């Protein structure tokens, strides 16, 4: 069967200039050979520390950043082969909700005007009355009312703004929505509201989500499947039910162990990892995680591990996974 969204070998790198004549002196590989697919109706989470390329990955899929290489096929059509104009029309099927609700709306526009914009941009002809009805319905959908439409962004709270941002993303009835850390700037109590709203919207509108976050607990709660990234590479792709119990990649395990659990009974103050994420500038040839991995061996520093099937629906890129991989034939 045709996959809903299939990403193959997606890569992008940014040049770094320096020296006397500002020549290109190196590259930062922001996303490197990303491969994964999403089924219709699924919620896939992408998790990783700052600079791992998770936000860039989202922008590559929507072609807000042009990839160097690879393919993104959406319902069977390759987005990267589309002309700029076709891509603009395609955008109505795939939308994005942004991290910072404080700056996601034009500060000079009222919420109402911002919500009308999707229709104007996509040249959907509406009468004044229809437009009004549509916007009011959108506001209601996300738990706001028409009073909020008259407000300017700075007059709303962070949670309300994030709801408005979600409403704008849903205006054109997209099938697929990328959520880029939609709750990172919010308090936990508001975060829970937004997460519940998203759960509800997915049910009602039959949406597919790609959820990007640095919070592994949140991702494993909200998503069906979790993709773990490190320095621009996907290191593991695992079902959310398994991540807490049997991660395959040592980095995934370290991430889980780094979380401070809200259980005062089990005090665990070990640091699972030493050092910090190295600079993504001119990476070594071996495994990107080798420098910080406690189990790294000679092979890890020399040869890049590729994503391999784990046998239970996931994939891992590690020479020495924590659980031996099932025999590929069996």
């Amino acid at each position: 069967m045709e996959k809903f969204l299939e990403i193959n070998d997606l890569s992008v790198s940014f040049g770094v200039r320096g020296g006397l004549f500002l020549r290109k002196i190196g590259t930062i590989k922001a996303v490197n050979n990303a491969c994964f697919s999403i089924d219709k109706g699924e919620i896939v989470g992408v998790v990783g520390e700052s600079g791992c390329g998770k936000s860039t990955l989202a922008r590559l899929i929507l072609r807000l950043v042009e990839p160097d290489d690879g393919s993104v096929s959406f319902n069977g059509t390759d987005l990267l082969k589309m002309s700029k104009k076709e891509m603009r029309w395609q955008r109505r099927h795939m939308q994005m909700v942004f991290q910072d609700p404080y700056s996601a709306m034009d500060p000079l526009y009222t919420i109402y005007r911002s919500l009308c914009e999707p229709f104007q941009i996509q040249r959907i002809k509406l009468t004044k009355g229809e437009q009004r009805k549509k916007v009011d319905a959108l506001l209601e959908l996300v738990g706001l009312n028409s009073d909020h439409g008259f407000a300017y962004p700075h007059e709303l709270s962070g949670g309300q703004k994030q709801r408005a941002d979600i409403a704008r993303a849903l205006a054109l009835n997209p099938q697929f929505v990328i959520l880029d850390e939609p709750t990172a700037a919010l308090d936990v109590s508001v975060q829970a509201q937004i997460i519940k709203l998203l759960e509800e919207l997915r049910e009602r509108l039959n949406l597919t989500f790609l959820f990007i976050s640095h919070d592994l607990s949140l991702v494993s709660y909200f998503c069906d499947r979790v993709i773990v990234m490190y320095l621009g590479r996907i290191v593991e792709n695992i079902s959310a039910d398994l991540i807490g119990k049997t991660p395959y990649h040592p980095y995934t395990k370290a991430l889980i162990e780094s979380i401070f659990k809200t259980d005062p009974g089990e005090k665990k103050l070990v640091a699972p990892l030493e050092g910090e994420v190295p600079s993504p500038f001119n990476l070594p040839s071996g495994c990107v995680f080798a420098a910080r991995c406690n189990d790294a061996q000679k092979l890890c520093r020399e040869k890049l591990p590729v994503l391999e099937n784990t046998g239970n629906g996931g994939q891992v890129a590690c020479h020495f996974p924590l659980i031996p991989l099932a025999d590929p034939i069996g």
Partner: protein
Amino acid sequence: MIENNVREHKPPWVVVLKKLSKNKLGLMGTALILCLIFIAITAPFLEPYSYKEQHIEIMNEPPSLSHFMGTDDFGRDVLSRVIRGARISFVVGVLSVGISVFIGVIVGAIAGFYGGVVDLALTTIADLTWAMPAILIALLLVAIIGTGLESVVVAIGLSYWAQYARLIRGQILSLKSAVFIEATKSLGASDMVILFKHLIPNSIGPVIVAATIGIGNAIVLEATLGFLGMGAQPPTPSWGAMMSNGTAYLFISPWVILFPGLAMMLTVLGFNLFGDALIDLLDVKNKESN
């Protein structure tokens, strides 16, 4: 799941008026500018005497009850000339700043939005122009296109554009990566929609502030050109030209220089105070507009 209601909602102009009413210096600036506009419009009715009639018998008379600001070397009433000069100053200021802003916004927007080589070329030219003393550029332009009020307006307009170009370019560059611009892009908006409906409206604030203060600067520049004999030609009573004529009699009749200068000082002060208040009113966060 319904959240509590909107915080206080006020249309933007109400907020601006309210802020202005609290800003004493800003109010003073507004009053000075309104005064200038009033005088400029009603000049012919306000003048006690004709601004150009010469009366040799009352040459260089000090201020008195009949001539509040005295008379000049042709026996013309200084007060009447100062009033008439307000009109010229105002028109020169507004028109020349209009020219600069027009050029500046176009150049700055193109440079900031397209970036790359276009940006490099345009910014180099703008930076060079900006580093040059405006008086030097204006002098040369007047030398090339000839003296007279029209050419002074054009010359001043062409010497100040770089400031606005730099401002708008900087604003657009910082806004280009703003989340709401990315959001608009992800809705499928074209470059033109992004530039004209979002980027320019959001970056115009500092330009308005700079333009307000710029009117004051343009008035001073016009006067300086007039003083150097490169501005409006006699008998046009531009404040600069009046002072230029008065220099020769500085020690005999200082009032000929003193009063146009004071008038100009108040005018420029008005634009500066109002511009400073605008920084606060429009929530502009840009040091360079100072």
